[in-house]
């Protein structure tokens, strides 16, 4: 019963996400440069998002829709990243 209620994959995913949050806290330590800090945050956040997407949201569970869902998310991310970096490009970096 416990095994059916708490599948090992979900438990591992949960622990993994907690660990990633703790790892991300490393950026607050002295001696971590800004660039390294941003890199750590980016890697942790992407892994966290992947855990949610693949493990908890089952994005790849159906063969029929898998490719369309990947394309949908990829396109949304493309729009999002263009929005964010396009804004930074024009407003902050001064081009």
């Amino acid at each position: 019963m416990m095994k059916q209620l708490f599948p090992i994959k979900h438990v591992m995913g949960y622990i993994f996400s907690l660990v990633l949050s703790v790892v991300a806290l490393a950026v607050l330590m002295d001696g971590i440069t800004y660039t390294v800090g941003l890199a750590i945050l980016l890697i942790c956040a992407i892994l966290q998002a992947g855990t949610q997407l693949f493990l908890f949201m089952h994005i790849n569970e159906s063969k029929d829709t898998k490719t369309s869902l990947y394309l949908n998310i990829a396109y949304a991310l493309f729009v999002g990243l263009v929005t964010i970096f396009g804004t930074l490009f024009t407003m902050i970096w001064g081009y």
Partner: protein
Amino acid sequence: MKINPNVPLEYGTEENSNRIFGFWIFLGAEIALFSTLFAVYFTLWNRSGSGPTASEIFELKGVLVETFLLLTSSFTCGLAIHAMRHGFKKATLVFFAITLLMGLGFLGVEITEFVTYVHDGATLSTSAFLSSLFVLLGTHGLHVTMGFLWGAAIMIQIKREGFTPDTTNKSFIFSLYWHFLDVVWIFIFSFVYLKGMM
């Protein structure tokens, strides 16, 4: 109604599997929405004028509690769907209840944080930094509030009707929404709070 027995109940009819697909497209639009808010925040986050700066007002403790609550609620929401697929009605309801209570706890901490900010003179109109911060956090918090009401309504339906193609479909779509809100929070946690305190 033709139900395909080879897939989980929530995907069983063509209409229901289209609903799930449609919701993914909605989540794509949500990614675009939050991207615009992040873009504004990243542009304005150090324009604090005469008001407090990010590192002056952010408190790690509350943020860690919020992160823990949302990560755990995302986990229990996943467990709820897993239990649903095994047909355990009671376990599903318990896991959903824990999920929603943690969501409520998250909102409690966030509202306390907002009240503290305003009390310290950091309001929506104090500076460009605070405007963009409140709009970003507020939009996410509003989503969690909506999710809480939505999830509670679905729990009532499961309790009343049991697992039908309809209720399982609604539950699964709700779970997608809830996990998505957790993803958005991770980015707020990393690129608003931790980056602001670096």
